[in-house]
């Protein structure tokens, strides 16, 4: 199996030395993100997040299916995060790596278990028909901080997504095509964001945000905090690594809140821009649809 070459001793020593002097390789401040860009696709439910050289794409799709027998009043909501060799040849198809398992668990806990999407609203006919919402996360390029980027992409794509409108008359369910009725957004309850902290030094006293791949390879420990702009923590994961003073973790939480609010504002703003752009396009699309008929 092809393997990632690990950083040399020189790089290890230098990066840590520079951090101790308060310097990062790319000249960023310790709590500064790389250039963050969020784009929406032409279709609904496609979000493309670029974070420095890291790039992830989330794609939402929906279909009508039967609900799980033990949850007749809930729709189905899944997030798939299969890392393809596109991000790194070290990822093999059908063989999840630790990175993949942790990423998928984090998204699961942050977005699904925190009830960001109201799954009850996806129910059409109890016990018989419901919507199945599926998010596919594609990692196109991996240069560190996959988690923060992926979480933003998933939340953005879900908020951008429109599912076909439906109506129920008696026992008959009608699903309208986009030409018949304008698709509707999902019932969204809150937007959680992941913020990853990387720790360096003997006692983890140095703390970085948005670490690059090299920085991630050299960190002694990390802590991922997911929260929404209301200050509700959805998940905390400091999964082992060098022990860190409890006080600094509490500081992380408040730093995460600040950052989460920033991301939240950014997302709202991008969504607003997109709907404005779409409004213009919407008229045109209707016209062209008319013509084709």
């Amino acid at each position, binding site marked *: 199996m092809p393997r990632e070459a690990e950083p040399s001793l020189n790089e290890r020593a230098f990066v840590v030395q520079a951090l101790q002097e308060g310097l990062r390789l790319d000249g960023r401040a310790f709590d500064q993100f790389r250039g963050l860009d969020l784009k929406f*696709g032409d279709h609904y439910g496609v979000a493309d997040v670029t974070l420095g050289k890291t790039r992830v794409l989330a794609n939402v799709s929906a279909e009508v299916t039967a609900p799980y027998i033990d949850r007749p009043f809930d729709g189905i909501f899944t997030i798939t995060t299969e890392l393809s060799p596109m*991000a790194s040849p070290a990822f093999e198809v059908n063989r999840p790596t630790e990175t993949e398992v942790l990423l998928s668990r984090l998204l699961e806990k942050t977005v699904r278990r925190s009830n960001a999407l109201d799954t009850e609203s996806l129910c059409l006919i109890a016990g018989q028909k419901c919507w199945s919402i599926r998010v596919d996360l594609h990692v196109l390029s991996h240069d560190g901080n996959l988690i923060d980027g992926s979480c933003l992409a998933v939340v953005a794509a879900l908020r951008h997504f429109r599912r076909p409108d439906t109506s129920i008359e008696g026992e008959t369910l009608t699903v309208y095509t*986009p030409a018949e009725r304008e698709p509707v957004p999902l019932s969204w309850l809150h937007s959680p964001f992941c913020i990853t902290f990387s720790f360096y030094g003997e006692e983890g006293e140095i703390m970085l945000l948005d670490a690059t791949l090299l920085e991630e390879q050299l960190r002694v420990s990390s802590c991922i905090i997911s929260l929404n702009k209301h200050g509700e923590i959805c998940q905390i994961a400091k999964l082992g690594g060098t022990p860190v003073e409890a006080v600094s973790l509490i500081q992380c939480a408040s730093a995460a809140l600040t950052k989460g609010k920033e991301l939240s504002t950014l997302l709202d703003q991008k969504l607003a821009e997109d709907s404005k752009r779409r409004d213009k396009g919407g008229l045109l699309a209707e016209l062209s649809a008319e013509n084709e008929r």
Partner: protein
Amino acid sequence: MTVTTEPEALLSYLQKADGSATFSYAGYTVIGAVNGPIEVQRRDELPEEAAVDVIVRPAAGVGGTRERHLESLIQSTLRQIILVNNFPRTLIQVVLQVTVAPENDYANAKVAQANLNLPILPALLQTAVLSLLSAALPLRATLASTALAILPEHGDRRIISSPTGRQIEQSQSFHVFAFTSHDELILAESEGSFSMKEWDDALAAAQGTCYPPTTTGDTDVLMDDDKLVGSDLKHFTRSTMEQKTASDLYWK
């Protein structure tokens, strides 16, 4: 819904891969990444040539048998143009990620597992070739590929190149061809019912789109002149690559 009729491409924009390309054409957008030659797993190792590994991933889901079929078609095609003998006991990995497939406003198909099928094959092939060029892997030649549908029309038949999803649904037969830059037919896949004559016509039409006979056999390498507007794929590939080379070698 607007369908891009003009092909568009972006090269080498995934910094972590050896070569990459995004290609949009006829409503499809595909991102390709190429890594190679890299270390190969023992079980896939070939003693005299590089193993070529093609992975096709749909926008939603991880794919099934249809994708595996497409992968095998692309794999056997690419093996013909890559100089695999240059890198024995290595691996050349081509990953093709579909990001946009044409949507049909008039049907609510089962979208969660969108079917990738023959119509996407030209876009996949084209992306793969651009990615390989971007990775500077030694090739025997480049290739171009196109799709055609034969539609019934007033008792007669009409050949449509790069048909829309709707047209494919109505068509009697559907064909995909790929040609190398040496004007050899390298891939032909057909579906539906058609006569030999129709197939010949389709082939000719495809050749016109990919490599117009006017320029084939042309020894002219200084094709800077834009007399022929880049409507055919050969010119498209050439001009895309030329731009990239120019910007890479800006210092020359």
